[in-house]
């Protein structure tokens, strides 16, 4: 049994219904993205994305994440290596970011 059972994902791996998201789900999704353990900084980013999506309806862009959390671009790419844009949105249970910057 996994917390991911009974959840639906689109063909790119994004959770279809963001309201089903829980922290336990994030932990499992992170493992699937190669992140064994979510640290306080990982959570800071996830929580910012969740809050941002609640007000704007979309996952934030990378620049919005660095501006909003105070973390640097280097931090962001170190925490979520090899493609943070999609990884962060996926783990946060949101769709693909819609902005370009």
């Amino acid at each position, binding site marked *: 049994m996994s917390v991911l059972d009974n959840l639906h994902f689109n063909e790119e791996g994004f959770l279809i219904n963001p309201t089903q998201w829980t922290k336990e789900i994030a932990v499992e999704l992170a493992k699937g993205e190669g992140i064994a353990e979510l640290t306080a900084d990982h959570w800071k980013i996830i929580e910012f994305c969740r809050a941002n999506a609640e007000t704007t309806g979309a996952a934030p862009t*990378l*620049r*919005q994440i660095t501006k909003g959390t105070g973390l*640097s*671009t*280097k931090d*962001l*790419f170190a925490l979520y290596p*090899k*493609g*943070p*844009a*999609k*990884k962060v949105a996926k783990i946060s249970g949101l769709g693909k*970011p819609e902005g*370009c*910057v």
Partner: protein
Amino acid sequence: MSEENRKIAFICSKGNLDMAYPALIMGWAALGNGVDVTLFFTFWGLDMITKKRVNKLEIAPVANTSFKFSLMGLPTGNLGIPNIMGIIPGMTAFASWFMKMKMKKLEVPPVSEYLEMLHDAGAKIYGCKMTVDMFGLKDKDFLPVVDDVVTASDFIDMTEGAQIIFI
């Protein structure tokens, strides 16, 4: 590593403000999606990585057939801004200011800041040796994000397997 990572390389040869952005935007998107990025600056593109020039990039309205009055929000359809207006002193500065203002509204960072973001995200940034020599530029003239000045041959070697985009 089971398979080789996707790679994209951009050759930036233009120093106009509007031509500075395509590689920055695409490169940033590529990095965000986990693609390796290399940027190679040659000819007028060197302005983008030169300290004295990077914050003074401009866009000229003269001979630009896309310059229409409608860009200013006027309901004038395809009516072009006459070239003779473009040659008035200050028009290039005005057009550049106008474009920068539009970009700022979209929260697009200035070129120098964009390059820092790309570099911090792991992009490799190089100047082209031949044109650097031609313009008489020295290492101290470049932004700190520039990794090295390399020859065309070096660039070809280091972008093996990459998709190359010339701008």
